[in-house]
């Protein structure tokens, strides 16, 4: 039938469009030095791990990964906690100004980074938090809270108010009701929000660039962007580092793709 043939064609086209550039990068990372510079470029690598070894040993890839993990992890955790509290308040206590707060978050999330970069730098400088984990994490929390709050509010709103009321009547205090009934039901949403914040913090570049100038605390994106290369770019190592930087995210995305799609479109459509 013509329809399914067209569908297959488009699907394959879309898949190729999305995968080919990335696959090319991964394949490049697995080549040997000779294969890298070969012209015409060889399509299939020899699965040579030389670039990985070099990236890890000569370019200190592992400690960039460690920094990113610490920063992204802390950001995700704290943002989700603060965001859940806010989202619960917004979903439960239907006060007039909570809608205004959500709108404020939306507006704030649209600020171009450059518009706040300078003063943020100055603030962190005054706090002596430049080149520290807490400095970057603090900035990231502020950047992630709008999206996280929007998504969490959507999920908290889906927990019917009556169930919480039933818990109150059954004998829970407000806090007990939150803990025993609301949180278990909102858990999938909380997980999704945490994941999205983690991914966003892991990938963030602009603020990482201006706040972390000391290589010992730099995160992975900065490390990859600033890969040293005077005359020739170490493309092999860059490819290897990039692959390592990306594989965890790709895996997380593939595993949680349903939740992610839901979270993104829920956060978006509700706007």
């Amino acid at each position, binding site marked *: 039938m013509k329809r399914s043939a067209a569908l297959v064609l488009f699907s394959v086209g879309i*898949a190729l469009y999305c995968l080919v550039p990335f696959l090319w*990068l991964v394949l490049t990372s697995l080549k040997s030095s000779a294969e890298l510079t070969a012209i015409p470029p060889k399509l299939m690598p020899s699965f040579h791990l030389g670039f990985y070894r070099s990236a890890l040993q000569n370019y200190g890839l592992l400690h960039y990964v460690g920094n990113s993990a610490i920063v992204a992890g802390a950001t995700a955790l704290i943002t989700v906690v603060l965001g859940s509290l806010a989202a619960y*308040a917004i979903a439960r206590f239907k006060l007039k100004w909570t809608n205004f707060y959500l709108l404020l978050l939306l507006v704030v999330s649209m600020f171009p*980074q*450059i518009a706040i970069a*300078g003063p943020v730098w100055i603030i962190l400088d005054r706090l002596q938090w430049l080149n520290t984990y807490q400095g970057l994490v603090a900035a990231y929390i*502020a950047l992630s809270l709008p999206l996280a709050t929007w998504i969490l509010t959507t999920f908290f709103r889906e927990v019917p108010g009556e169930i919480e009321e039933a818990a109150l009547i059954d004998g829970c205090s407000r806090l007990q009701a939150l803990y025993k009934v609301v949180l278990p039901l909102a858990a999938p949403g909380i997980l999704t929000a945490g994941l999205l914040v983690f991914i966003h913090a892991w990938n963030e570049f602009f603020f990482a660039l201006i706040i972390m100038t000391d290589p010992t605390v730099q995160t992975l*994106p900065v490390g990859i*962007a600033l890969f040293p290369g005077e005359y020739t770019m170490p493309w092999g190592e860059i490819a290897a580092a990039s692959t390592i930087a990306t594989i965890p995210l790709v895996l997380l995305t593939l595993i949680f793709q349903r939740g*992610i799609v839901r979270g993104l479109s829920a956060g978006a459509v509700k706007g």
Partner: protein
Amino acid sequence: MKSSQRLALLFLLPSFLFIALFSLFPIIESLRLSFYRMILTLPWLGQKIVGWENYSDLLTDPVALASTRTTLIFIGVTIPLELFFGLGMALVLNEAFRGRGLLRAVVLIPWAIPTVVASQMWRFIFNDRYGLVNFVLFGADTSRYLAPLADPHLALAAIIIAEIWKTTPFAALIILAGLQSIPDDLYEAASVDGATPWQKFRHVTLPLLKPALLLALLFRTIDSLRVFDLVYVMTQGGPADATNVLQFYGYKKTFGEGMIGYGSAIAVTVFFMSLLLALAYLRAFKASRVQGQAP
């Protein structure tokens, strides 16, 4: 009633504090700093108030004007193409078929890749010696290989291609959500009324998709104004300022040269551009909402 208000405030306070300190206060500060002349890393030199001088300089600065033009071209080309491809992807993803889940996951990959990685990736693909693009265009004939990133005429195009690749999935997701919210009965009613697939698309899908399209338009435009990672990694604004978009120019002035006063003027300008665009879209969005609810 009072106690629940207090509790709500308590729950919202920590979030609000972060946002106030790292978003609200800085934007006001930027506004203030744009009226000063100051070197970022030499605070002891003090701040000298210069009034509107930064802004008047901005209006006559040829680099700034070219930068604005570059930014507008960038937005003007990427957005329509993203929405077009995004719509296509969403339409395919909306159909039910085996492996749809897998395709949806694959579509998320460009979104999941760090922008910096994507930048390096495309930089490599556009490479003048081992780049995939050159090979696809010219085969093994290396004498004809191009260096798009070193060519003032091609560099912007390269960045545009990279941007479209990276961000189309996000647009596709928003549009997909919009597509899925259109009830099936409407299509069935249209079928019974005798509509062809194209007619169904024109008269059922598109009108009801307007809110989602506008939303995608809003988000993508705001994000396009903020493009930075691609420019930083691929071209550093060059060659010859060919890809010197506004946010990057602001960055160079503030953190490259330390001219935070002038940089703040650029920053405020970009901010107001975003704000105006957002307001324009929200107005169009509200209007389409009302229309959409009419039938």
